[in-house]
């Protein structure tokens, strides 16, 4: 029987209607010494208002350089069962779909070797198994991998790609997010497991600009589905929305960012050449409006959290690329992008930071992408312009300018 700690502060957080993480820890603590000690230590943090964890050293499994985050209690005498409390990142399946069989299998492993606590899922997308001892890591890995699971990423490596539910259950997916996510994960297995890059590199795949996986804000490489054709309008369904009480003028037409819609005599029109495919009208009138024509993906690069140079959203680098199996063009593009980064970046420099330092032109030339107005919000303002002698031989030739 694991030890019982007095947890008056945490107990407060079992009250109230929303599901409680404290309850979860207590459930695990009924059978796990680790979870029991974790509960005790967390209560102490609640009292003292500081964490009691130490930096991780390098821990992991044979042949891999990542996938485990080392963690140690700074009070190992007081909480001996969490002297080690490493997390294991297991690469989730595309779209976070599971069978209950699979879930039970992984629970069995974790109950045997770990704290019985998980995160379903971590912010990057992995299944996070919270808390185990260094001694258990090889066993855990053998159990998981023999059943078809593999570790996720950590360290200066490809990080576990993730995606929105896309074509599995969404009418707006322009690309097969689940498949792209899976194929890219497979493609970069070596780079995912053996950190050899300047820093982390995250990939997220969203089926449309609604971006239900936050690709544009949280992935070095944000792959977002888009289309080129017109929006098809079903006027009968438009009438139904109006009948249903929707104020189409106010809710749709006025909110269209490009002002390209009109609504007269019950008819909704889109001036397609002015639509920028923002998804608003489609999302709010899904029965009446749908994209059509050529589908593909935009590749945006660079988003990340604030450290070191301030948070970034991803920048459009490839406005449109075909994304159909076997995804050769897409894979090659991403490989080239990473190669450019790997070649030039300092340690702990994300690709967004590097693009700022080296300039977008350096990247675009390396990956063979033309400059296009679709890449920018607006052109430069200040006339501090770099030219190469070649530019004058090829672009700014006397006969042209």
């Amino acid at each position, binding site marked *: 029987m694991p030890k019982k700690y007095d947890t008056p502060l945490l107990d407060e957080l079992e009250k109230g209607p929303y599901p409680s993480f404290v309850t979860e820890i207590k459930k695990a603590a009924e059978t796990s010494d680790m979870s029991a000690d974790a509960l005790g230590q967390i209560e102490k943090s609640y009292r003292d*208002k*500081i964490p009691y964890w130490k930096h991780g050293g390098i821990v992991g499994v044979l042949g891999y350089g990542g996938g485990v985050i080392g963690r140690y209690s700074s009070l190992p005498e007081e909480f001996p069962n969490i002297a080690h409390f490493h997390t294991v990142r297991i690469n989730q399946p595309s779209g976070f779909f599971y069978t209950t069989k699979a879930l039970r299998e992984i629970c069995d492993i974790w109950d045997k070797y770990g704290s019985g606590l998980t995160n379903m899922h971590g912010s990057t997308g992995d299944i996070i198994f919270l808390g185990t001892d260094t001694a258990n890591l090889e066993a855990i890995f053998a159990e998981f991998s023999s059943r078809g699971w593999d570790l996720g990423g950590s360290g200066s490596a490809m990080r576990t790609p993730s995606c929105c539910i896309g074509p599995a259950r969404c009418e707006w997916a322009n690309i097969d997010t689940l498949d792209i996510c899976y194929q890219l994960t497979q493609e970069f297995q070596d780079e995912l497991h053996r950190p050899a890059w300047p820093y982390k590199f995250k990939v997220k795949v969203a089926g449309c600009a609604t971006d239900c996986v936050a690709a544009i804000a949280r992935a070095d490489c944000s792959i977002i589905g888009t289309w080129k054709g017109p929006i098809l309008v079903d006027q009968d369904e438009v009438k139904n929305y109006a009948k249903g009480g929707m104020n189409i003028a106010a809710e749709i037409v006025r909110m269209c960012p490009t002002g390209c819609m009109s609504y007269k005599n019950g008819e909704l029109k889109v001036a397609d050449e002015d639509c920028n495919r923002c998804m608003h009208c489609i999302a709010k009138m899904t029965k009446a409006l749908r994209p059509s024509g050529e589908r593909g993906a935009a590749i945006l690069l660079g988003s990340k959290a604030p450290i070191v140079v301030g948070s970034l959203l991803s920048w459009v680098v490839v406005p449109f690329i075909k994304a159909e199996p076997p995804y050769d063009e897409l894979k090659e593009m991403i490989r080239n992008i990473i190669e450019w980064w790997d070649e030039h970046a300092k340690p702990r420099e994300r690709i967004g930071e590097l693009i700022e330092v080296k300039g977008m032109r350096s990247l675009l030339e390396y990956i063979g992408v033309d400059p296009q107005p679709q890449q920018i919000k607006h052109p430069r303002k200040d006339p501090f312009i770099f030219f190469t002698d070649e530019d004058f031989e090829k672009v700014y030739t006397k006969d042209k300018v």
Partner: protein
Amino acid sequence: MSLPQRQTDIGPPHYEHFLPPVIKKNYGKWKYHEVLTPGTMVHVAESGDKIWTVRVASPRILSTVTIREISDIADNHCGGHIRFTTRNNIEFLVSDEEKLAPLIEELKEKGYVVGGIGPRISNVIHTQGWIHCHGAATDASGLVKAMMDEMFEYFTTKELPNKVRLAVACCVNMCGAVHCSDIALVALHTKVPVIDHEKLKNTCEIPTIIASCPTAAISPDPAKKSVKIKESKCMYCGNCFTVCPAINIHDAERDGIAIVVGGKIGSLRSDPKFSKLAYTFFYNDPPRWPKVIAAVKNILNTYAANARKHERVGEWIERIGWEKFFKMTNIPFTFQHIDDFTFMRETMRTAATFKW
């Protein structure tokens, strides 16, 4: 006890193994969907097939006990299929309308909370906090729980003008979605870190420490074979602490929480936006951080009462203007709201236009 044969570099299981049959059949051929209740929706395929989704709140930290329990429920109603969302909710899927009511009934019976679909508050993206991270300036899970208890109705019933995405990060590394959320909490250190010179000498690389500082506040201290920090340049980001455990950034009395607002991710109506500082600082006040939660409610309620339908928090603020936002919410405006460095340039007003 012998271990099974390990495999390497196999990647995750192929997702197809886990897709419910109706999804496999209609993959990529969905036509439209309808939100039925705050926690249920139906997607209709071109074939006419339908799939009903029931969304259930999760604390994200799940014990295997709970995972087994939801597996049982999925076995009972969903043919043994289950999924999680990108915001860590649990989704139960059924292809037969008749299965919907019994599923929901069992969920409610077992204490699960159904909701989070449509224009309301869904689960909170958050981080490890005191539960697992050495850098945490607060606890993330506790803040989420305290906040969602108060926002509960916006998950289960009430509507808002649009989705409101909440997030919590326990330090400025922001392992979550804070920088682009409608309303988010981010924990701050507010004091220059303290260096254990003896320990530093033996455990850390000085060039790495120096390079880690975004404001170039750190310089070598050759006498001590250590480093020193120029106080006026330090903004307590903790990056030096990340690369060197001998530098302690924690301070129980001065660690605290800021609230940022107005970020978004989707491109609907307006470009993705960063969150901006609303409340500068609250002291840590576990287990329920009442002032923080009241502040979040203040913002949310002002938004709910004033935004137009479909307007996200940031879109509403930009329409009315930040000076009006501060006025309506009564949030004190401080020196800290004004940005520094080159960021200042884009954020100061460059027009003699004002609301009073």
